[in-house]
């Protein structure tokens, strides 16, 4: 099984639209994982059935049992996260600030602090309208631990692909360069970077490419909206040359991306135009490269 992760650094480059299109082209050979857990959109295009749903807990959150508290304030003294405010003369835990380190519980002389499981989000295994499997999640409101939820989504999707002898796992990755994106790409076979020729697109792509290089993962790049700025497209190509990242496609600026989303379809299903043809060719190239 080969794992292909699509990322972009910057949002709004067309990453999810392209990922969902690749899933259509891969058809029965593909299991999908939506690891963009705090802005998951793939379900809007693929109508998953949410057949399997479970709560995902990760990390801990402290709770002070007021009856046992002697108000010595030791918990507040050791907490580095400002998570123990005093409200109405009671020491309480601010759940948004609590990191779950448990230091407060270790120093409490009366054992008045208990650690509860922290709900990180809901996790789903679905069959999509294309009849392939999508593993996806919804981060709990204002929750921590999105990196852990990403790892959970990927691990489950991998298991399904391996158990059913499905050759490819396609992952819609998270934005940025922090823990969710690290959790999305670690140990994968190929990273597909989707970018756009804007100053922001170039900047974010170069940071994310640097990160991928640190992990030593093979990557390829796809430039969307390639014709909106010829100068920056050239700069992106120079960067890719220097980092030895193959450029597999240049997609022109086209409102077909927005139109397809409005119709609830992937680009390759919605249109047979130039953009769809380029995405089809890209999928072939990705398969060639990942099989090498």
């Amino acid at each position: 099984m080969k794992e292909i992760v699509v990322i972009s650094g910057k949002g709004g480059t067309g990453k999810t639209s392209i990922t969902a299109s690749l899933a259509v082209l891969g058809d029965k050979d593909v299991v999908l994982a939506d690891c963009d857990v705090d802005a998951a959109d793939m379900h809007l295009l693929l109508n998953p059935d949410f057949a399997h749903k479970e709560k995902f807990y990760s990390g801990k959150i402290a709770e002070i049992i007021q009856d046992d508290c002697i108000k010595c304030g030791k918990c507040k003294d050791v907490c580095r996260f400002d998570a123990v405010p005093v409200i109405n003369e009671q020491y309480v835990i601010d759940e948004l600030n609590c990191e779950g380190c448990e230091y407060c519980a270790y120093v409490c002389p009366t054992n008045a602090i208990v650690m509860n499981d922290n709900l990180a989000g809901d996790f789903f295994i679905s069959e999509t309208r294309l009849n392939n499997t999508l593993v996806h999640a919804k981060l709990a409101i204002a929750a921590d631990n999105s990196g852990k939820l990403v790892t959970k989504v990927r691990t489950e999707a991998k298991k399904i692909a391996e158990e059913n002898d499905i050759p490819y796992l396609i992952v819609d990755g998270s934005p940025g360069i922090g823990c969710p994106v690290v959790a999305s790409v670690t140990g994968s076979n190929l990273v597909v970077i989707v970018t756009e020729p804007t100053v922001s697109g170039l900047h974010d792509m170069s940071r994310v490419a640097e990160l991928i290089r640190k992990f030593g993962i093979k990557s390829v790049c796809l430039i969307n909206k390639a014709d909106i700025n010829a100068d920056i497209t050239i700069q992106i190509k120079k960067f890719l040359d220097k980092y030895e990242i193959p450029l597999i496609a240049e997609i022109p600026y086209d409102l077909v991306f927005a139109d397809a989303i409005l119709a609830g379809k992937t680009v390759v299903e919605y249109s047979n135009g130039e953009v769809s043809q380029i995405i089809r060719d890209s999928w072939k190239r990705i398969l060639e490269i990942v099989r090498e």
Partner: protein
Amino acid sequence: MKIAIASGKGGTGKTTLAVNLASYIAEEKRNLNVQEVVLVDMDVEEPNSGLFIKGELKKTEIKYRMVPEWIESKCTFCKKCANVCNFNALAYIGVSVLIFPELCHSCYACSELCPEDALPMKADRMGELRQYIIKNGLHFIESRLDIGIEQAVPLIKQTHEFIDSEFDETAFKIIDSPPGTSCPVIETVKDAELVVLVTEPTPFGLNDLKLAVDTMKELDKKCAVIVNRDGIGNDDVDKYCAENNIPLIGKIPHMHEAAKLYSQGNLLIDDIDEIRDVIKDIYSNIKKLVKG
């Protein structure tokens, strides 16, 4: 006054709004009766505001977080440190303690609970904060996470501390937030008086807007919505805002010219009068909401 510009979905125009709004207020400072205007880029994983506004660098501060360092000669191998660490950032391998700084949350538990003082905390570089003065009088602060550092929250926290010490209540502070709804966003908007959510009029934009609104409700934040690239989609965002009593305070029209200016790293208010007028209205709507 502190307002945050956020969005569920990436690439909807957070940075575009932040840089154009901040520059507009700075240029019109006298007429608007504003003392100081401060723009802060808190999207520390992918900071982009600085690509659109150029100025003179005033100050650079290297930012550190604290991680434990193992002093072999003092260690008695009681293993207390590894037992108390909830983040697997410490491990015993044979007769040595291994520290994984990328997993450390700087809670100090291992260090301060060590009976032999064998794990003093030391400073570990995580990124850089830069302060600029822009020609129009705008103060610009940008924090940038080093590539390979996974946790954005500590740098965001220190950036807030910097702004609060440099500028008083009378300054108009605009915070460019990271995308999504996870911990970096929550840390960013924590003390904002208003959160302006930028979205696009597509099902993706609406889905992620709803997630962002739910998060802000949980945090008890007042929010307002701005539609960017108005005209590419449908009016479902309008309906959603009306049904949920969320003020829709501006629509930035979709224009090819705007996309081009953005790609080059230019401000829209300098070249497109129509957009300057929209930004002007957005500012007065924000003022009304924050006062009311």
